[in-house]
């Protein structure tokens, strides 16, 4: 039961990251909203916490991020942008949230899938460095080539991360299927 719950949580995390990295805008409405992705991640924290207690520390952040993304999604529909200080605060929270979440996943995967665990840690590190650089107030208009490269790199990292998470879920499912029936 616990193993099944973990596999379901992995699925939620994988779909959550897919929703966060993928945007499909119809006019000003994102039909793949980030807040839904954050909600999936938040819902998976309880199950994750049973294997990595420190994951439970992320619950308040998950809650805040989901609410923030809902507000952001609503504001975007009316072409309104949040105050800079609020955006900065939630950038910091998001930076930490995703970093620790991926760390917890990697720690759980370490015992059974060490290679996958290593890849998750590498993706975590690359992702956070790219996010930090993109958040910095650099005049990207003047170095457009660098800006394009960074955006492409971020998209690639997001894609590889989603693929890795779905692979992790698949491996867990296969492992569950191989387990003898009680």
């Amino acid at each position, binding site marked *: 039961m616990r193993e099944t719950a973990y596999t379901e949580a992995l699925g939620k995390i994988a779909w959550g990251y897919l929703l966060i990295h993928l945007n499909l805008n119809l006019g000003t409405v994102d039909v793949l909203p980030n807040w839904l992705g954050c909600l999936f991640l938040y819902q998976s924290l309880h199950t994750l916490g049973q294997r990595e207690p420190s994951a439970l520390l992320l619950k308040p952040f998950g809650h805040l991020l989901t609410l923030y993304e809902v507000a952001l999604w609503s504001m975007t529909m009316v072409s309104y942008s949040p105050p*800079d200080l609020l955006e900065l605060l939630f950038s910091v929270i998001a930076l*930490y949230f995703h970093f*620790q979440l991926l760390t*917890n996943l990697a720690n759980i995967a370490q015992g059974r899938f060490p290679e996958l665990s290593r890849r998750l840690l590498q993706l975590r590190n690359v992702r956070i460095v790219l996010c930090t650089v993109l958040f910095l*107030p650099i005049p990207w208009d003047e170095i457009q080539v660098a800006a394009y490269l960074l955006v492409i790199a971020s998209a690639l990292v997001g894609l590889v991360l989603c693929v890795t998470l779905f692979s992790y879920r698949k491996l867990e499912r296969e492992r569950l299927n191989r387990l003898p029936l009680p």
Partner: protein
Amino acid sequence: MHNIWEFFLQTLDASLLCAGLLLLKRLFLDKLSPRWQYGIWSLLALRLLIPVGLFGTYLVPSLAVTLEWGKAMAEKHLTSAYSAPYLPLHITAPLPILQGMPVSATDWLFALYAAGVCFFLLRTLFGYVRLRLLLQNGTEPDEAQQSVLEHVCSLYHLSSCRMVAVPNLPSSFVCGMLSPVLVVPSGEVLDEKVLLHELLHKRSFDPLQSVFWSVLRALHWCNPLLLYAIRRIGNDMESLCDQRVLELLEGEDRRDYGRILLSMTNERYPRAPGTSSLSNGGTNIARRIEAIVRFQTYPKGMALVSVCIVVLLLSASTIGIHPAEFTKTSFRTPPKPDSATWHQQMASARIRRCSTMAGAVDTFAKAILLQNPVYLAAVTPHVEQERWMEQWEQGVFTLSLPALPLSSHDTQYSLYNLHSLADTGNYEGLLVFQLEQLGNDGTSQTTLCTLPIRLKNQHGWTVQAQGVFQTIPPSPTQANDGNIALLPSMTYLAKGASGSIRLQEQLICNVNNQSPSSSQFGTMFVTSPSFDPIPKPDADFERTWYNTSFTYTFTGSEEERAAIHSVGFCYAPIFSNEEIPDFSGNGQLMSGNISSNSSTGTGSIHEVLYEDKTWDGILTNGGGGTTLDWKRLDKDLPLGYAVQIYFNGEPREVIKLLREVPS
């Protein structure tokens, strides 16, 4: 800081950052270790040391605008020696600097603040000196105490230091910035963990840091939030030291350490600048015990994200996020002069300086086009602000165009002939406005109007008119691509044996002011560009057009001129004084029988045939232009031109023309 308003800006901005950091620390209390909890305070230290607005950006721009507005309102009715109502806030140092005796109430307030800074700094110094003098009366520690120290240093690989025993001390502490001394109660048995704590303070230069924070506390002695924060910083420093101790201890020793801390809850503790002590008060110890309890529960491997968070916050907290903007109601219709809204808008304009020349030109031009004094205030030199404010408050706006701007065009002005003035760092140019006038027959005609301007960089680029508006008769020609016949140009002359060459050039710079707007049918995909009336104080020149015209004037005799049946010249840019282009390949193109303009690999050719030998001695190529990159102008603009003169298809001479001093 030169006046009370600059102090308010510095301390309030730091307070906002402090509040943000306290919130972040609370959010990350159980997630990031005491190392991060203490290290994040470095952002506050940087904020307190770096003058607010030094780079033109602010954490909360509206704070700077509000204080500027308050200053103008208050100082208007006062005679201050330290500030002027319309001289914008510009902090150059984080310390108070008194410029003479105080005169007004705000001056005395600032003097009082400065006196408080001196008092608290002296108190810090006095406390430290008194402690050092007290230590001089201390004695050598006994052998047991010495051996405990040596044992701790050896066990934990720490460097030793001088130890002094002083009677009636509540607990041990380290004192001294550069050569710390370990001070212990005389005659008492020393606990190894207490010594370990103090030696770790010494290794991390905590007494020196403690003095640093004391200095910052003195600079903001009247700000209760910052005083509270600096007390928290002291406790965070102790928590970090506890963390370092726990990392070295194991098992039961860690619990013993916690018990030692608990036992000190009600004890007195030494408190002086340049010292650090295990005990720092009951409330603080309670917080430290909570941190110790969390020691094992902090998520592992968070070093990278800790650093990234600090990096992310670094620029926002030290440099700021945004420049101040013109307040929303500045556009198009200024409010009633001398009203509260008026003064608020003017304050935003004084704070919002233009960071680029193009931005200043754009703001100035739009001030004229829209008759908006708020925009004009943003590019007016500080020393002129008061004079102009008096005029604007009476509703007088002297820079009025003689006709209406072209409404249907996205480029309503251009800047001509921008050039630097030697040794001053200033620039001059000619603003050319495109206007529409009603002709005598009632039809609309395009006309041009010019205004010479000077640009200076004085804490942001400023613009001043250097003359009056000159109207040029109606012409169908647009001003974007230059017009050497109609508009002023820079002229350079060079003489040769056969004649002289005159170069007329125009450099035309434009900011992109195209503002897409919906069509009258309101469809999403059809847009028609219109002029964007909002100033762009940080703009660059998006388009720079370089227009040139060469004229050769023959200075030989009538007989020589009559013998010429074809004349031509070929000109090529040169980028150094020694450079001479190779024109030899052009001879075959100068056949003497062709009337043409063409280009070669060397440069441009212009040749005219005069079969009837009626050449008047003047040859001009009629003009031409090219687009340049504003950012590479110093590389792309040639030093001069080499001009090869041809008579009857044969090369006559090369005249070198340098663009050094316009004639």
